[in-house]
């Protein structure tokens, strides 16, 4: 890969990171327009279209961050030890994901300076309060899970021992909080019964959100693992990726059946063929996100090849992003909406900062270490 060397040092920065840095700067400029001139100028949001692309970004990024708890469950709770290294990668990915979703709140909220109000005021009946509390608590848990890696790097032996002593309760608490939070992201839409298109509205939305987040979390783990293998020469144990492919297959089948079963149960299968914008988006979401990956992962000659496992994971991620866009604007009744360049640029910028952060961490802390 081509890279640029920092003058006077041997440090090399890949050209891709430089491009992401440019995107971050443009994104930051777009964010300042929101902070200075306001939401009315920086976005195409309105009273009947109060949520847009930023909400989709938050929902998608938080779903991908489901990689952290899903992999923690597989590796630490089910004791599938071959996944330890990649679970650590998933953990970092999730950590960075939550941080960028948090950063998005600084443009998205009308009064971002009051984010701390989550601690001071509460409405226990609001799914969004539940999401907020779980995200805050879970980010704390992720910090605790991340610290041992940092301490190891800093060679703080005593602190490592302390962290090891509390590791299992921390992992269990993390999984518990994630389950609550991924499903409560779905609960947010339950009150939108007259606004959300029936293709997506369902009383079991919390379960659909949880299942799809776990599915895409595995896909994201595979994707980050693939990229790391190329960029950082990470070496995972044999069978890790095909094993994840198998888990992705089961998770995708489960989630797809859950969604179609829900439509059939409520007698809404006919909506699939109404040929509206919504039905097309539903097709993209489910054919790209579930049907194609399932086919790829079922074919024995393909489901062991990296290139096809890579494709399956990317498709799965596309499906998830489409779903989260559907529940945040495509499927919601309201004014016509197309994001402004500021919305696009700030979203791309936040995403870029996340990738750069991930690169910095992976470049400095040995995430994938020799075992035994």
């Amino acid at each position, binding site marked *: 890969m081509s890279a640029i060397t920092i003058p006077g040092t041997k440090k090399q920065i890949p050209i891709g990171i430089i491009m992401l840095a440019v995107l971050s700067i443009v994104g930051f400029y777009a964010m300042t327009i929101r902070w200075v001139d306001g*939401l009315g100028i920086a976005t195409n949001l309105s009273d009947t279209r109060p949520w847009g692309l930023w909400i989709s970004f938050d929902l998608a990024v938080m779903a991908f961050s489901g990689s952290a708890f899903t992999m923690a469950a597989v590796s630490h709770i089910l004791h599938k030890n071959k996944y330890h290294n990649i679970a650590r990668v998933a953990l970092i990915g999730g950590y960075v994901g939550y941080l960028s979703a948090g950063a998005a709140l600084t443009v998205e*909220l009308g009064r971002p300076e009051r984010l701390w109000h989550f601690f001071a005021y509460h409405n226990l009946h609001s799914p969004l309060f*539940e999401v907020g509390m779980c995200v805050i608590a879970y980010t704390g848990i992720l910090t605790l899970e991340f610290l041992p890696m940092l301490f190891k790097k800093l060679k703080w032996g005593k602190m490592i021992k302390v962290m090891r002593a509390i*590791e299992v*309760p921390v992992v269990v608490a993390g999984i*518990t909080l994630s389950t609550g939070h991924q499903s409560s992201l779905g609960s947010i839409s339950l009150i939108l019964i007259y*606004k959300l298109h029936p293709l997506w509205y369902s009383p079991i939305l919390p379960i659909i959100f949880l299942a799809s987040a776990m599915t895409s979390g595995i896909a994201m783990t595979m994707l980050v693992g693939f990229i790391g293998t190329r960029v950082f020469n990470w070496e995972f144990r044999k069978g890790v990726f095909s094993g994840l492919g198998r888990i992705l297959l089961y998770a995708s089948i489960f989630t797809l059946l859950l969604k179609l079963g829900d439509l059939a149960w409520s007698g809404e299968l006919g909506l699939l063929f109404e040929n509206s914008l919504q039905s097309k988006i539903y097709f993209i979401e489910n054919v790209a996100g579930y049907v194609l990956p399932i086919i790829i992962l079922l074919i024995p000659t393909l489901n062991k090849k990296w290139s096809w496992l890579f494709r399956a994971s990317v498709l799965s991620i596309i499906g998830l992003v489409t779903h989260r866009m559907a529940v945040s604007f495509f499927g919601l009744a309201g004014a016509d909406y197309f994001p402004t360049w500021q919305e696009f640029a700030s979203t791309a910028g936040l995403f870029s900062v996340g990738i750069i952060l991930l690169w910095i961490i992976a470049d400095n802390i040995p995430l994938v270490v020799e075992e*035994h």
Partner: protein
Amino acid sequence: MNNNSCQTCGTDVSRRDFLKIAGASTCGIAVAALTSGEALASSNEGLPLEEHKAMLYDSTVCIGCKQCEAACKLDNNLAEEDVNDLSGNTFTIIKEYISEDGTESAFRKYQCMHCVEPSCVASCPVAALTKLGDGPVVYDEDVCIGCRYCMQACPYGVPAYDWSQAYPLIRKCDLCYDRPEGPACAETCPKGALIYGKRGELIQMAKERIALNPDKYYENRVFGEHDGGGTSFLILAAVPFEKIGLPPLGNESLPSHTHTATSVVPGLFAGVAGLMSSIYIRTKDNEDDDLHEGGTT
């Protein structure tokens, strides 16, 4: 290598740790149970429903003079603007519905419906929106974080933003809750199309009007007695309610759809924590086998 611990992540946990896990999850459940009990207790305060402040709007009496709009602007100190919907500076608006063939028409006063179980109140994460014990749904602008969930959740499209502000606040009718004479709009109405009073008495009045004119009113009922769990802004109309922008909500309140989901949370937490802990214990003894297996597959 066979010391029953994982070298890379340092999992070296004795059974004692499960006391910690058990302890932590029990605390979690206890806290969750206590807090949810508290929430239930606080939602039962206030006057009985029939005593709530309310307004009755009779669409068949309204002449569309818009004096209520002007009175609202004046009393709430709102800027004049050219809009055809509720907005950050328009808390009430009169719209006229005319059927396509022009034979049927009706006015409708748009404003906050002051629901009995408001979606905005249920959705607001920081409780900036609250339902007062005597009926009005009010907003604390010092608490709001601007998430706009209320705007999304309200089935009547009431909460609005002043989008020209860099740090906007939610704006909506508060039933002039702190005005001794009651809402400015009702006080101004020259035709008595808008009447302020107690919810129980107004529903009674509406039913009397229906009884006097059995074929005049749509479905012979008052919108808001039960719709969406009931409202404090009650509407009588001669045309179908959907024609004047009232959504067909049924009698169930919208927040009831989320309450089920939010109330299972403590149980869910306890269940997941317990399940994960027990799986951990069950699979822990297989660790070395698994490590070996993991290395060869």
